[in-house]
Every structure is written in structure tokens, then in C-alpha cells.
């Protein structure tokens, strides 16, 4: 991935992050995700990424799991029921802000398969990696989306935004 982001894409991510207040997480990536950002907030207060890290720590997080019994993380609850029911419950909560999911690949695949994603922001990095994890492999039949906008950033990343 291209990690030397240009200013224009940083702004895109800030705007996207400010538009949400809840993060959905698959169980497998939860511990790494939360530990990473908590550590960041504690140890790198002067970093450029600090405001983002603080949002990741402060936002409500919902972990989707069949195996965990309780959450040991801050600002985190568990969702153990049917994925569609649980996500719709969160969507109906009274908040002016939206919900975001960053991964992992398996969890996002399930969300897509169950038609639960309302907006895709796909970051296309200028690198062909040959093989890897896909989020669309569980789609059974052709899925048409509507292009909302496409933005090319100075660092070579293109973000395509689609809606169902």
C-alpha cells in the first residue's frame, strides 16, 4: 500500500472519519486494531495521526463474534446475534452520524453478501499484488453499484465511492 499519503487524501479520510461515530469490527481483527490505536494514543501524542487514533479509541465499537463472552476493551460492546439483525439494530440507533467498517476481509465479505453496506469507499492503490484477500468473493451473482464519485489523489491512490 501507498502510505506516504498526500495532503488531499488525508483530508478525505478526516472528513470520512468525522462523519461516523461507530465502528464495526470482525472479532479476528479487533484485538490488533484496538491495541494498536490505544498504544498510539498513549505513546505518540505529538503524531500527525493522533487525532485519528483518538477517534478510533473514543468511538463506540461493536465487535461481531460467536465465541467471545464479554468484551475486555474500552468503549466496546459485543454483537452475537444474526449479522443482519445486529447491523440493522445499530443503523436504527438515534445518532446524526453514520457507521464505518474497515475490515477484516472475512467480516466485510459477510456484510457485503448480506447487502448491509450502504456506501463503499474503495482505495485503489497503484500496486498490483497478484493475489490476496478479496471482499467480493462471496457475491453469488453480478452486483451492480452506482458510482457516486471518483477522486484521484496526488500520491497515486484513487478512491471510488459507490452505493448499491
Amino acid at each position, binding site marked *: 500500500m501507498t502510505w506516504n499519503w498526500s495532503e488531499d487524501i488525508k483530508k478525505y479520510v478526516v472528513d470520512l472519519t468525522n462523519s461516523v461515530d461507530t465502528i464495526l469490527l470482525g472479532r479476528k481483527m479487533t484485538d490488533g486494531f484496538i491495541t494498536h490505536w490505544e498504544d498510539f494514543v498513549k505513546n505518540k501524542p505529538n503524531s500527525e495521526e493522533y487525532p485519528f487514533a483518538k477517534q478510533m479509541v473514543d468511538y463506540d465499537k461493536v465487535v461481531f463474534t460467536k465465541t467471545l463472552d464479554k468484551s475486555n476493551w474500552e468503549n466496546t460492546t459485543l454483537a452475537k446475534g444474526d449479522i443482519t439483525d445486529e447491523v440493522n439494530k445499530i443503523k436504527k440507533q438515534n445518532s446524526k452520524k453514520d457507521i464505518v467498517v474497515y475490515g477484516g476481509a472475512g467480516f466485510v465479505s459477510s456484510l457485503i453478501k448480506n447487502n448491509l453496506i450502504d456506501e463503499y469507499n*474503495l482505495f*485503489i492503490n*497503484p*500496486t*498490483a*499484488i*497478484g*493475489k490476496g484477500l*478479496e*471482499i*467480493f*468473493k*462471496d*457475491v*453469488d*451473482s*453480478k*452486483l*451492480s*453499484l*452506482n*458510482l457516486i*464519485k*471518483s*477522486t*484521484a489523489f496526488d500520491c*497515486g*491512490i*484513487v478512491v*471510488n465511492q*459507490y452505493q448499491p
Partner: protein
Amino acid sequence: MRKLKLQMQMSLDGFVSTGPNDEQKWVTWALGDIYQHVLGLLDSIDTIIIGRKLAIDYIPFWQDVLTQPDHEMYGFAQRIVAAKKIIFTKTLDKSIWDNTELAKGDMAEEIKKLKSQGGKNLPTGQAGMIVYGGTSFVASLIKEGLIDELHFFVNPVVLGKGESIFSSLEEFHYLKLKKAVAYNSGIVLLIYENNQRK
């Protein structure tokens, strides 16, 4: 050295074909959006590189379109038929089509030889070469780092599975974004340059 360019239709999850006998029904055929770019690319080249498997259908198809002056892609067919076509094959002994030659040697060497030959002088510079497919032929060209410029029409559709031109890469392949254009039809044109030109 003249450039080898690639133009392909792609799904938003990166596939270029649903598999053998793909009729590209998943492609958004918004000719009004993309035709100028497609013709512009063809006007920048004088040679088409093509794998044998695709050539067998492709060449007769465009020859047939040329007999239909009202066809919406008549201008494209004119250019395709007029261009020199190099067919890469291990099995054919001679070409049965007009304006075609066979390349039967090592792929990388044949391509490098073609690149070092001067193309026609065009107002825009030296004429390059283009390849449109098929999937496995393009995958081999990419793996060998032989494509200099990549033009993808990214369609607003998820295929879930299919054929990829990047699946045989053994290492990461870094590209440089040259331009991105979003069209009203939902197609996004992505133009990349190879950063590892050989």
C-alpha cells in the same frame, strides 16, 4: 523504444473476464463516454499485439463490422483492420488474415524487437503498439514487465469471481497513476504507467 499500451475492460473487483466464452455482458457499453479515448489510443499506435486464442475471433469480427457502415463501432473497426497485427502463437504456421504477421519466438524477445523498431511518425510522436487481450496473453506480458501503459475501464459492477491479469505475479508490481476520469455512466478510466519498465 516505442511503448506497448494495454486497454481492457475491468470489473470494480479487478476481473477482466468471467471465464471462457465471456461475452462481456457485464460491461457498461457507454460508447458515448469512452469512445473518444478508445479511438485516441488507436490513433497513437500503428501495431496491435494479439494472442492467438483471441485473434481467431477478434480479427474476423472486426472485418465483419467493416462491412456495416452504420455500425456504432465502424470507426474502431476501420482502425483495427488497417493496423498491422502481430499474432503471438506457437501453433499457427501462417497467417490467414490481412495485415497480420506471426511472432513465434520467445515472447519477451519478440516484444523487445518490436519496441526497438521505429513506429510511424505521428503528430503526437512515435506510434506505439497496443494489446487488448486475451487474459492469459496479457497476464504473461504483465508478468514480464513488457507493458508500459495500462488503460483500464473500471465498470461499476462486482463479478465476485473471474479471470485476473495479475494473478500470476510473483512479486508486487508498482505502477504510477497518470490519470483518472469518472464518466456519467459510472465507468472510471484509470491510466497507469509501468514503473518497472524493461
